[in-house]
């Protein structure tokens, strides 16, 4: 899941600058799961902005609306009927959602209300952890299901650095050493031999070799 | 079926709720303080807690019996991580007749085949009258029958008491399933009921919606209904069965016809009923060809001409003159008088009808019993009571008031996890997949599951009836018929 957090309200207010009719646009997918941009958060942000406007005696119209997904054109296109009533859209989608809306409605400014954070796991109620970089070349087999790219602070491929002490990363005592976890897991199921080889330099071209990536699946296309 | 020596009741197969979170009366809560000591897991004999991967989870909160628990986990938890309270959902379940306790205990019976261990009032509701104010009078302490094995207590019922050339039919439990039409409920519901009826050695009625082919394997356990709309009635269907039921009226909406909303008339329903998809269907009231007992006799004769051995049941509701109607039906040739009380179930009825028209079954049965007795024909006819019978205790009470057996309806649906939201008629029908013909919603319930649930519930009923009979010092349920002396009414008790 993509995680995100709301930007500070003053930053948002600053970006909304001159616009008088604003659509606050939520997204009911990932950002709803991490309680940053779902219907409820959208209602809260809209209400907050309306209050700000009233406090400053500004004549601003702010409505809210939540799409099932902002990053899917079929959902985004449903805004077509209402978009012309607004000067700007404040999107609570992730970066992909913001850009999908922007792509479709080129005539109107789209303003992000969230900082998109990472691909993560819901570890516990109210706790989300980064565990994937989306490198396009998954190596989790070799690393026993723990990604050193996402979870080792140095993105090391061939074992823990000298800063790994007691299962903790040198960065911070709160951070688990991913390599300790990798080794523990591989030891548990007897696959330490996977770490004997020198893991070759990562093929980053899968992540950024050809500019922005795309996946084309003809079997999935119409 | 007549060879009762061979008949064996099925075993209980534990059949839990088909929903993820079964509803119980109490709810347990565990805070983060839990240190996974496992004490609660060891202590609880109801299986509420489980331990997994180093954490204790409350997995079966619904099994918690709350203050009735002899060793409450929440009192002994060393870190005070557990608390117990009444499930707030419980409060808004049910109604005066089907109290939350009754709903939940019926679900429990359908799951386990036994009445609930503790924590629930499973014997009566809180309607403030009738069954709920009647009590069975039992001798304190042991009775002579206590030593008799359960299987020697006879709860079966002979349906043909006329001694005519009709089938000799014995049902092994003193109840059978009332009519629910194909269309008002899903085929899965119908199959569940009929398969359970077969397993229990009894019958189930098709209602007025035709006789789906899926029921063919169970012909010997089907009662087919002839009602005012004559939907799905064909000579062939009359010939297939051993019992034919005339429905003159339905207790929940006496004096009104049936009404199947257009939404529920799916292609399958339309084919079965010979109707048009999407158009509402009305059964008129009454039989437009019946204006007298003589007319009624013609009806009965018609059935006997087509299927001479068939038993004829006459389903009537309960007006002031219900006793006259019963006697008339007997003289017209009926084997079974089926009285349907005004507080029974329905797929859809105007609320004004459900509440106000005709009398509750508790009044009708003694009235009919006394009248038939006075007429000297009580032994010649089987009186079946339906419409508001919810528990084995209700069964015992209505038999003691003069019925031979009972007909069940709503209780079956509750066993299938009906929650009595009263929305059977709206939109796509039952959101829980019971009283619906919507293909997607129907999928929510499979008949294998439904059959097991019904069998379990009725085995629990039977067990409870046997227990009651033993405590009353009886060895057969026949002994209970009309034994008003076994009952007291709280308002009249001296």
């Amino acid at each position, binding site marked *: 899941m993509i995680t995100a957090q709301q930007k500070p309200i003053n930053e948002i207010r600053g970006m909304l600058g001159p616009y008088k009719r604003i659509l606050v646009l939520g997204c009911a997918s990932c950002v709803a799961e991490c309680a940053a941009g779902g219907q409820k958060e959208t209602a809260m942000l809209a209400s907050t902005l309306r209050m700000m406007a009233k406090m400053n005696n500004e004549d601003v119209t702010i409505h809210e609306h939540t799409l099932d997904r902002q990053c899917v054109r079929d959902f985004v296109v449903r805004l077509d009927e209402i978009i012309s009533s607004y000067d700007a859209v404040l999107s609570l989608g992730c970066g992909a959602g913001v850009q999908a809306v922007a792509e479709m409605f080129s005539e109107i400014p789209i303003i992000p209300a969230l900082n998109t954070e990472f691909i993560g796991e819901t570890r516990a109620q109210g706790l989300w952890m980064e565990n994937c970089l989306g490198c396009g070349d998954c190596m989790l087999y070799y690393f026993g299901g723990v990604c050193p790219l996402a979870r080792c602070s140095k993105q090391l491929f061939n074992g823990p650095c000298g800063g790994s002490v007691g299962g903790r990363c040198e960065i911070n005592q709160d951070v688990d050493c991913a390599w300790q976890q990798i080794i523990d897991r591989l030891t548990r199921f007897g696959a330490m031999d996977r770490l004997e080889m020198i893991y070759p330099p990562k093929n980053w*071209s899968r992540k950024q070799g050809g500019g922005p990536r795309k996946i084309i699946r003809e079997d999935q296309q119409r | 079926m007549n060879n009762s020596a061979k008949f064996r009741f099925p075993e209980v197969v534990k059949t839990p709720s088909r929903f993820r979170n079964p509803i119980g009366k109490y709810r347990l809560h565990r805070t983060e303080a839990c240190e996974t000591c496992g004490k609660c897991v060891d202590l609880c004999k109801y299986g509420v807690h489980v331990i997994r991967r180093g954490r204790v989870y409350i997995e079966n909160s619904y099994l918690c019996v709350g203050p009735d628990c002899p060793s409450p986990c929440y009192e002994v938890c060393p870190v005070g991580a557990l608390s117990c309270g009444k499930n707030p959902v419980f409060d808004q379940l049910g109604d005066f007749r089907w109290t939350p306790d009754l709903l939940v205990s019926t679900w429990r019976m359908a799951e386990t085949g036994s009445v609930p261990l503790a924590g629930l009032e499973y014997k009566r509701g809180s309607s403030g009258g009738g069954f709920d104010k009647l009590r069975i009078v039992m001798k304190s302490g042991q009775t002579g029958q206590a030593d008799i094995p359960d299987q020697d207590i006879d709860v079966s019922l002979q349906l043909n008491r006329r001694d005519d050339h009709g089938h000799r039919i014995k049902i092994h439990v003193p109840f059978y399933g009332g009519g629910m039409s194909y269309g008002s409920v899903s085929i899965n519901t119908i199959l569940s009921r009929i398969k359970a009826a077969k397993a229990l050695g009894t019958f189930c009625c098709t209602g007025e919606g035709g006789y789906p082919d899926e029921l063919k394997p169970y012909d010997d356990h089907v009662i087919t209904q002839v009602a005012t709309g004559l939907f799905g009635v064909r000579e062939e269907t009359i010939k297939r069965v051993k019992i034919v039921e005339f429905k003159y009226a339905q207790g929940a909406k006496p004096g009104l016809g049936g009404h199947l909303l257009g939404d529920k008339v799916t292609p399958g329903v339309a084919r079965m009923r010979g109707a048009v998809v999407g158009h509402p269907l009305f059964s008129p009231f009454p039989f437009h060809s019946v204006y007298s007992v003589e007319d009624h006799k013609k009806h009965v004769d018609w059935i006997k001409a087509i299927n001479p051995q068939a038993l004829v049941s006459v389903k009537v509701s309960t007006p002031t003159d219900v006793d006259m109607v019963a006697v008339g039906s007997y003289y017209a040739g009926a084997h079974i008088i089926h009285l349907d009380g005004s507080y029974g179930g329905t797929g859809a009825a105007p609320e004004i009808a459900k509440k106000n028209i005709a009398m509750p079954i508790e009044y009708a049965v003694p009235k009919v019993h006394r009248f038939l007795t006075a007429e000297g024909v009580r032994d010649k006819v089987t009186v079946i009571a339906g419409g508001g019978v919810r528990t084995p205790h209700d069964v015992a009470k209505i038999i003691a008031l003069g019925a031979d057996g009972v007909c069940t309806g709503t209780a079956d649906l509750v066993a299938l996890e009906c929650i009595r939201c009263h929305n059977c008629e709206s939109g796509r029908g039952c959101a829980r997949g019971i009283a619906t013909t919507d293909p997607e919603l129907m999928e929510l319930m499979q008949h294998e599951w439904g059959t097991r649930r019904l069998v379990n519930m009725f085995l629990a009923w039977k067990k409870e009836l046997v227990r009651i009979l033993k405590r009353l010092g009886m060895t057969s349920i026949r002994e209970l018929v009309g034994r008003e002396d076994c009952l007291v009414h709280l308002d009249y008790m001296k």
Partner: protein
Amino acid sequence: MKYVSRLKSVLEKGGFAVTSECGPPKGADPQAILKKAELLRGKVDSVNVTDNQTGVVRLSSMAAGVLIRQAGLDPVLQMVVRDRNRIALQSDILGASAIGIRNVLCLSGDHQSFGNQPDAVGVFDLDSIQFVQVVKNMRDERVVIGGDTLGQPPDMFIGAAANPFADPLDFRVVRLAKKINAGADFIQTQCIFNFERFDKWLSAARDRGLTEKACILGGVTPLKSAGMARYMKTKVSGIDVPDELIRRMECVSKDRQREEGIRICVETIERLKQTPGIRGVHIMAIEWEEAVGEIAQRAGLLPRPVPDDQ
């Protein structure tokens, strides 16, 4: 020994500067770079040393710069942000300054996918404009990113590149302004074939006063053949070779095309010398360093002023 930037001193004295470039070899042989440099000695003021150009692994530009410096030429150290993060970039600026390199050209760099290391990660921690600003702050404010103060600041004449021929045209001038405002002392442009476009760009830059704030060196490249002209037009993004120029190359016989290329180049330089706001030329004779001397000679750019440090 006190090093000064010859490019800087020429420009400060109001001279018309000449720079050229030489690419380090795909190997560790110092002579390869020194040989190329030798061809340029006395012909140009400063020599750009390219930094793993087109994403191909070569001898490091820093080392090549040192070799050139030691040979007595004035290197312009090209640095791309593709391969180094801000720590490395800043550290290399300090190192370069310490060993007497006085010019730096701050670049984004060609994408790694073009070269022989397509699997490499592209760092792009800073972009070229940020980098210019960082170097300026190191030099003038004595601070690195994050605000830490430096002991001795680097002494760098800061350059940046500009391409008047890429799109969108209107923004190219904005970008030039950003580079200059960020602290670029000099600008080397992409090679100029299309004067119509170039003049538009330059006049917009003049209107913004940019030609006063930084020294713009027009980039020129001698065409070796008509084929090269066509290739550059179609295959190299951001280079605009007008059709008439291609025709002119095609009109001469193959063996005379080099000569024609030099002639065009000389004409271009002549024209640039007359163009207000142009302070010099940057001759990029790709793998043809021998031509630089002749071009400079024929364009009247020789002799080069004697540097102060000699």
